[in-house]
């Protein structure tokens, strides 16, 4: 899932300073699961905003709405009947959703209420961890199913570096060394011979270096 983190109330209040009528949009997908931008977080943020504005004697009207997804236009269309009643949209979907809402309502300012952070997994209730950076050319079959791009701080394709110590990364002593994880897993899989193979230089044009990416399935198009 895409994992995001709520921005601080202070930052959101600053962005909202000029506005009194706010449409607050959550999303029912990834940001709901990572407890950053679902219906519940919409409720909590709306309440925080109302309380702090009231404390300062300032008005704010907030319409709370959580869409099934903010990355599909059918759902974004659902706010069309009333979007015009609000001065600004505050979205707590991922960065993709926030932008797409803005693309659909071009005269509306759409503000981000979260920092979209990574593609990851739920380690346990309330703990999420990064797993993939969407590099566009997956190498998991060569690295024991552990991603060297996302899980090595230096995204080394042939690691570890000299900073790996007792299984931890030199960047942070609480961080597992991605390459230690790869080697451990290769051992478990009886594939340690793969570690001998040098992974060639990566073509980063499939990643962000080739510019924004687009995917097309001609057979699905209407």
């Amino acid at each position, binding site marked *: 899932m895409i994992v995001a983190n709520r921005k*601080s*109330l*202070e930052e959101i209040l600053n962005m909202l300073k000029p506005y009194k009528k706010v449409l607050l949009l959550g999303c029912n997908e990834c940001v709901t699961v990572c407890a950053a931008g679902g219906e*519940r977080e919409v*409720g*909590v943020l709306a*309440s*925080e905003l*109302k*309380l*702090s504005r*009231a*404390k*300062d*004697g300032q*008005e*704010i*009207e*907030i319409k709370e709405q959580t869409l099934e997804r903010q990355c599909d236009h059918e759902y974004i269309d659902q706010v069309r009947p009333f979007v015009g009643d609000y001065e600004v949209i505050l979205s707590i979907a991922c960065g993709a959703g926030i932008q797409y809402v803005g693309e659909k309502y071009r005269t509306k300012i759409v503000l981000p209420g979260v920092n979209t952070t990574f593609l990851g997994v739920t380690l346990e209730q309330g703990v999420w961890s990064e797993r993939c950076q969407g590099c566009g050319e997956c190498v998991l079959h060569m690295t024991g199913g552990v991603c060297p791009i996302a899980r090595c701080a230096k995204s080394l394709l042939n690691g570890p570096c000299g900073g790996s110590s007792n299984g931890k990364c030199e960047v942070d002593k609480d961080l597992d060394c991605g390459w230690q994880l790869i080697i451990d897993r290769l051992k478990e899989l009886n594939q340690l011979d793969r570690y001998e193979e040098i992974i060639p230089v990566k073509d980063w044009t499939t990643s962000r270096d080739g510019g924004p990416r687009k995917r097309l399935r001609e057979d699905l198009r209407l």
Partner: protein
Amino acid sequence: MRLNYPTNVKIVKVPCTGRVDILLILHAFESGVDGVYLAGCLEGECHFLRGNLRAKKRVQYAKKLLDEVGLGGARLEMYNMSSAQGQRFAEVAREMTEKIKALGPSPVKNRVRGVQDSRGQVK
């Protein structure tokens, strides 16, 4: 036991403090209360095993939110007592009342728009 406790304390009954989520607490403040406290069972004696421990964590989180909002986390507390400790219940009610009195009325009293009253009417 005919114990007295301050009349300003309004009781909202929930099956377990584990039912109390952050939104419930924030909505109470939106409705203009000066303080909120949770009276949970003693730690280790939750009928639902961990309800009171979860409530404790939520209270800690909500305190932070109240600090950020500017109401102050001190307006929210969590207490633990068993259902047999009527004396303690009355004592906590007095303690919390004194504490909130010292903090003064909520700065958002009657100022939040769109608050629903107990009948679901929007003010």
